[in-house]
């Protein structure tokens, strides 16, 4: 099947090839990169028209792991949609989870207590660190620096351990509830967090020292895949990739959610929007995230960790096992028999890759009438075909890693 596709693209290129041959006798060739190419992390297919090592034209095909999130969401009650959001950007699941809960809370007009908001912020920032760590270390691997990856991955494990304290799982976290969190972050959790805050900066500094000013790495990245701010906005870029082009658009600042206004942090921006800037912006964002976590950790308010909304918040497990009422409530909530108003909301959070939006139309029934995810990767990946034009093949790989396209989010 992919052969058919390659062929159809090849037909499209045929004219160009002929034209070029007539011009100066040079020969263009067609190269199919992907969908399972070791150098592309995830499932992307690009059919490239090459002039020697240089890319003349590119055509991206996606959808190789299309899982029909939006269709599933139309058939599931709210509590069963979080597992879907986990699997969207699986490098930073908590951000997706929280974004979804905040959308629901907006629809139901629920106020979340301060403590829950702060813990949510910590989790989201940890997720952002994990996300950027993957992206940057893999970028370094693609540029030939394997060691950095080994250094920082250890710390991703530590982040996972903190997640585990709050929700019990590592990657697909399914964290939170309508109105707050399912449990308070335990003492062990706080201890681990404290240890992380102490150890991580040193280790990450080491990674930066190792990679950031490395001559080879810089040569591979600087001026590769630059995109101007205007172009980036027109293509719908958001998140680190846009900020690398010099636009300071960040939803944490422009539409603060979950108490982000309480913290002090900067938005790092780049200048030229090339691969190196993207790398640097992500690195600086990691430092900012550490700052935010530190502040939230220091200022952690006391109080309840979930809102008092028995209609939506699952009753505690001991009650469910021992008390008829609670069992019924549990069942009702899980099956979606909760009072939901009619209406439509749009809520967005700053995901690992940009503006992660949820557009929810509710018709008052137990499942959403329509739930549309604004997936940042999907939207900015369309620029890739244009960005690679004129670059070397090996640069295309580096660019792809630096854009941090997550297949799950791309293909929905």
């Amino acid at each position, binding site marked *: *099947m*992919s052969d058919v596709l390659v062929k159809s693209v090849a037909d499209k290129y045929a004219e160009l090839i002929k034209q070029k041959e007539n011009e100066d006798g040079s020969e263009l060739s067609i190269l199919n990169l992907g*969908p*399972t190419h*070791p150098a592309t992390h*995830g*499932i992307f297919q690009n059919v490239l028209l090459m002039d020697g090592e240089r890319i003349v034209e590119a055509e991206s095909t996606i*959808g*190789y*792991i*299309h*899982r*029909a999130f939006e*269709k*599933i969401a139309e058939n599931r009650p709210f509590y069963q949609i979080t*597992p*879907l959001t*986990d*699997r969207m950007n*699986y*490098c930073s699941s908590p951000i997706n989870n929280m974004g979804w809960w905040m959308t629901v809370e907006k629809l139901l007009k629920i106020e979340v207590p301060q403590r829950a908001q702060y813990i949510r912020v910590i989790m989201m920032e940890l997720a952002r660190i994990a996300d950027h760590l*993957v992206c940057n270390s893999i970028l370094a691997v693609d540029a030939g620096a394997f060691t950095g*990856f*080994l250094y920082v*991955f*250890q710390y*991703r*494990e530590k982040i*996972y351990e903190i997640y585990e304290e709050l929700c019990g799982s*590592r*990657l*697909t976290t399914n964290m939170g509830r309508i109105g707050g969190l399912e449990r308070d972050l335990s003492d062990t959790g706080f201890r681990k967090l404290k240890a992380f805050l102490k150890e991580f900066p040193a280790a990450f500094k080491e990674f930066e020292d190792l990679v950031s000013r490395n001559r080879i790495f810089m040569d591979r990245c600087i001026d590769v895949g630059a995109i101007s701010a205007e172009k980036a906005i027109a293509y719908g870029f958001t998140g680190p990739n846009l900020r690398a082009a010099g636009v300071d658009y960040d939803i944490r600042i422009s539409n603060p959610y979950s108490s982000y206004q309480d913290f002090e942090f900067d938005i790092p921006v780049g200048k030229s929007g090339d691969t190196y800037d993207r790398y640097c912006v992500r690195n600086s964002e990691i430092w900012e995230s550490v700052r935010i976590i530190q502040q939230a950790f220091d200022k952690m308010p006391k109080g309840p960790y979930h809102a008092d909304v028995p209609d939506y918040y699952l009753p505690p497990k001991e009650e469910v096992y021992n008390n008829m009422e609670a069992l019924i409530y549990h069942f009702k909530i899980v099956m979606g028999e909760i009072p939901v108003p009619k209406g439509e909301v749009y809520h967005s959070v700053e995901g690992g890759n940009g503006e992660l939006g949820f557009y929810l139309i509710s018709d008052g029934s137990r499942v959403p009438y329509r739930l549309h995810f604004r997936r940042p990767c999907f939207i900015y990946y369309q620029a890739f075909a244009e960005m690679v034009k004129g670059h070397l093949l090996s640069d295309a790989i580096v660019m792809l890693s630096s854009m941090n396209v997550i*297949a*799950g989010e791309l*293909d929905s």
Partner: protein
Amino acid sequence: MSNEIKMVEAPAGVAGEGFFATQIDQVVGLARSKSLWPLPFATSCCGIEFMATMAPHYDLARFGSERPSFSPRQADMLMVMGTIAKKMAPVLRQVYEQMAEPRWVISVGACACSGGIFDTYSVLQGIDKIIPVDVYVPGCPPRPEQILDGIMKLQELVKNEPMRRRNSPEYKALLASYGIIVN
């Protein structure tokens, strides 16, 4: 770090002065099981857990899988991790066909095993619909320990596999039932 070097136990055999006789099956199985070259076919979330498995914390290399082989031609063990959409299915199948015998398949994660939570029109409901699978690792995603356990289970299989299995009519029939023709 200890300097102690651990050796695998030799298979049962007859030892005498200057010789050791045993079945070749067992020797070959032993050697193979400790140097399985994986072909990571990672599509989505489970692939990220595989990354963690490769990374120093869990270190897959301890099990003789130091070198992930990205070319199907030189791989022994196909590790399918993540959702396989119907659009992807022919590609997976092609990769399997390109691998040389003997080849083993581990299906990692609920999605690869059965479609997982994605019982939808676009997702293949289990890769065993298109290729034969040796070891299933459940979980969504499985923890790295589970993935390692799956690999150890496979090592056990490899170790005890008779030499002639791949030539047997049963094996050919199995492949034929998937529509894979072997010459």
